[in-house]
């Protein structure tokens, strides 16, 4: 059966169109695709997608995170060991976060991080053969938005939902940002951290995010209005 872009595909299918395009120009194959000898096989069930020019990938539903370099993730510090913190990011093993990877940290000046704290960090090293490493500074040594997240609430969701809300076209954060002030951090490992002035507002943002998983843009906007109305009705 011929596979075309936009089809629902299963592992084991192969897409001839990609091989055809590859003869003419350079092709980038993304998650869910794998090149074997001369064919490109599909390794994850989902929808085959394409972005111009010639980038192909499979959009699949996934909750389990596989660490990959360059992604911002939210982790929980589980242990202090020697010079590093052990941070749990939801992968197969805990990631390492060095004491010196914080802004303004030196050997004498240790960062104030306790076991059980939530950190927003960037994946520096992530391969299937080594334990993942995180950093809380960018390459200039500046903190940016990374570091310890204090207070608030953290919860898990699917990776698709994270990608959906971080998409600039998604109206969710746009609709909510004018209603009440809040901070949100989305980790690509399927975790979201929210902080608002009152706990009801925090729950309301969490409600909006989790509820938006299967809704389209119009429905997301109306759901946000609904939530804002419920919250306004009970200002406590």
């Amino acid at each position, binding site marked *: 059966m011929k596979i075309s872009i936009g089809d629902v595909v299963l592992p084991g299918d192969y897409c001839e169109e990609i091989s055809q395009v590859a003869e003419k120009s350079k092709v980038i194959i993304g998650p869910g695709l794998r090149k074997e000898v001369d064919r490109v096989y599909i390794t994850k069930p989902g929808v085959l997608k394409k972005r111009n020019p010639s980038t192909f990938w499979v959009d699949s539903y996934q909750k389990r995170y596989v660490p990959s370099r360059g992604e911002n993730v939210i982790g*929980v510090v589980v242990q202090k060991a020697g010079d590093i913190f052990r941070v749990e990011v939801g992968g197969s093993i805990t990631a390492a976060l060095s004491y010196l990877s914080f802004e303004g940290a030196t050997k004498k000046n240790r960062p104030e991080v306790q076991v059980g704290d939530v950190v927003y960090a960037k994946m520096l090293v992530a391969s299937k053969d080594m334990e993942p490493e995180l950093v809380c500074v960018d390459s200039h040594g500046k903190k940016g938005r990374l570091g310890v997240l204090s207070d608030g609430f953290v919860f898990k969701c699917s990776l698709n939902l994270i990608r959906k809300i971080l998409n600039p076209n998604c109206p969710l954060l746009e609709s909510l940002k004018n209603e009440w002030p809040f901070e949100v951090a989305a980790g690509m490992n399927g975790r979201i951290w929210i902080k608002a002035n009152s706990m009801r507002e*925090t729950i309301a943002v969490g*409600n909006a995010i989790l509820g938006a998983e299967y809704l389209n843009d119009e429905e997301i906007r109306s759901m946000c209005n609904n939530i804002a109305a*419920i919250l306004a009705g009970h200002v406590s």
Partner: protein
Amino acid sequence: MKEVFLSNCEKSFIQKIISEGHRLDGRNYNDSRKLSITFGSGYGSCIVSLGETKILAQVSCEVVQPKQIRPNEGILYINVEISPMAAPQFEANRQTDLTVYLNRLLEKCYKDSKCIDLESLCIVVEEKVWSLRVDIKVLNHDGNLIECASIATLASLAHFKRPDVTRSGEKVIIHTLAEKDPIPTVLYHYPVCSTFAIFSNNILISDPSFIEESVCTSNSEEGNINGGLLVVGMNQYKELCLLNLSGAAIYNTNIVHRATLSAADKCKSIVDLIKKAIIDDDNLRQKRAKINFGDIITSDHLQSLSRKDLSICLKNFDVKEQTLQNETADSMDVDISMEPSKYDVVPSLPQTAELKAKKGASTWIEISSESEEED
């Protein structure tokens, strides 16, 4: 068993919202999640789901020699299994504390309370008796395993029918299901367990979810556990069958009293639900309808395998309201008969507009009178 790590902010957030009277998924303190009981094709198998916690129970029987001390009674075994399918922190084929705890509680509730008539399971005294074995498998762990497991055990025991036996002189004939109708188990009373999470300030939460359970039994900053889980087992006659506390010691007897009162009503309604489900199932089987677990899986629907309720929810948020609102919005577009506005928008100062009431209308701006009341 790998430890599930709870972050400090989750702990403090849950404790804060519970002390303020709310729960993470919008329920009230004594609201339970949705309970559904589905029976399988064989007698004695059922899947019970309490919210997202799902447990499968299967009852089977075989003829064995009775115990020496009880030669005229049948035997009941209860076996609980938790595999990594339930949650990633469990290891396969490993008996953890939780498994032992569940096993012990279910034995106390169903064996020690003598709810099953074991003497009716006797075939030949001192030689042959029926031994009933209840196998409980946890399919998904989202908190409150005990309540779900006890409902599953009870429903499967009440649903189970053993083969009929006739004795003629020395011979004992066990009939197949085709020859003679099987006989249901005799239950004297129907006990069910109900879990309560106790937080500081003596707050009782019924049917705790996974995160509420974890926070309740976790160590606080001082290193000791502040809360506990209270399991109350009662039957439909409001008789207490089981009482078990884990976690911090209770120093207030009021808590146990409140918990038992709350459990009494809850257990009665659960037992009524189980009985009704069994009667419905019986009726369907008499009409020779095909019953199997496939009915609980709805296919051809985008969200068939996702959770039905949001885990974080405001109190009055209703998922179905979304579609309802969209429908009314559509229908409103069709017949555009807006009532004329009572106000005029009038420009007053530069770059400012003002709402001015038309002649005869009141100058008070109307606010919708649907303001909901705080409970």
